[in-house]
């Protein structure tokens, strides 16, 4: 009894250090404790109607547009540099036949039009969200953010931050495949 009492604090401390070590090592494998899990996962995509940015940009979409096939929703802004970085990969996904819808987050009509003209517009439709109101419905915490929606209109995946080649290969493509099953 006495021996156990003396050893117990050491044992508890060792367990604590062990747990913290495991959690710390996980951050090296990409676990980011500051990332918020999306509340939308497994639920249907929000029924928000987004207007078009401008007459010459295909756009405006509603929640019902995201039904019937696997789609991707990308939140972007002309002032967002990481959005520009991921733009070529999104363009490639769209060219491969994936319908990509965009939410233009807190932007202005001239800025957004200019950006799309310069960098190309791969989006099936662009919804204009100048005051961030629709983004809140989607649970957007920052730009860029990407959602995958399956044929039933259920959100199956969310990625916060830019899509890099690694993210595309390790997460987006497998998730797209999963969503289409």
């Amino acid at each position, binding site marked *: 009894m006495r021996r156990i009492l003396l050893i117990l604090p050491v044992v508890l401390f060792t367990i604590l250090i062990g747990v913290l070590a495991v959690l710390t090592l996980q951050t090296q494998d990409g676990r980011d404790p500051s990332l918020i899990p999306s*509340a939308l996962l497994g639920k249907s995509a*929000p029924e928000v109607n987004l207007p078009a940015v401008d007459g010459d940009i295909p756009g405006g979409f509603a929640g019902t547009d995201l039904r019937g096939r696997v789609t991707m929703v990308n939140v972007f802004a002309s002032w967002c540099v990481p959005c520009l970085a991921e733009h070529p990969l999104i363009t490639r996904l769209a060219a491969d036949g994936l319908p990509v819808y965009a939410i233009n987050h807190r932007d202005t009509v001239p800025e957004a039009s200019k950006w799309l003209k310069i960098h190309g517009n791969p989006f099936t439709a662009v919804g204009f969200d100048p005051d961030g109101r629709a983004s809140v419905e989607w649970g957007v915490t920052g730009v860029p953010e990407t959602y995958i929606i399956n044929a039933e209109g259920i959100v199956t995946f969310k990625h916060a931050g830019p899509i890099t080649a690694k993210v595309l290969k390790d997460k987006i493509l497998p998730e797209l495949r999963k969503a289409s099953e």
Partner: protein
Amino acid sequence: MKRLLAIFAILAAVSATALVTVTPALAVEPDEVLDDPALEARAREISKVLRCVVCQNQSIDDSHADIARDMRLLVRERLVAGDTDDQTVAHMVARYGDYVLLRPPFQPNTVALWVGPPLMAFVVATLAVLFFRMYQRERQSNANPQPLSPTDRAQLDELVERLAAEPRRPRRRSKLRSELDDPLGSAGSDTGDNGDGDNRAT
């Protein structure tokens, strides 16, 4: 010491006035404020329990982030639409998850969070009591020694006898004693090594 006390008193007075007069800068901007003061008061109360999702540890009532503003506006929109406070909070939770609540709810996945700390405190308190009891028991047994067992007694008697039989060693003279007998210190004797200046001179 007196001056130090005076400085402390001044510092305390200054910080006390600072605490009273300085209020945190308001994040709520004039154009957000609702016309109905009762509704606005409710909006402020709700805003205090909702977390700004990009600031991690600030309520949307405190935060100047764009998204916090969007969330404040949504709260007001829900209240104007006739939602109760709970419905408004639930509306935000549906979009951002439990994470949006600064005070996590008590539910299956937060049991460890709520129960853990009191449980740990209980374990530590129990251990402390056990340790204390053990210590006390030890002290008591030291205070009331048990009589020696016959074997112990025999062993002790034998030791005493053996010591008594040994010839007594001569007692060493104390240092003070030898210094008194020989104040100048005889050359080469060990009393000269005590670092005394006089001794070194000789």
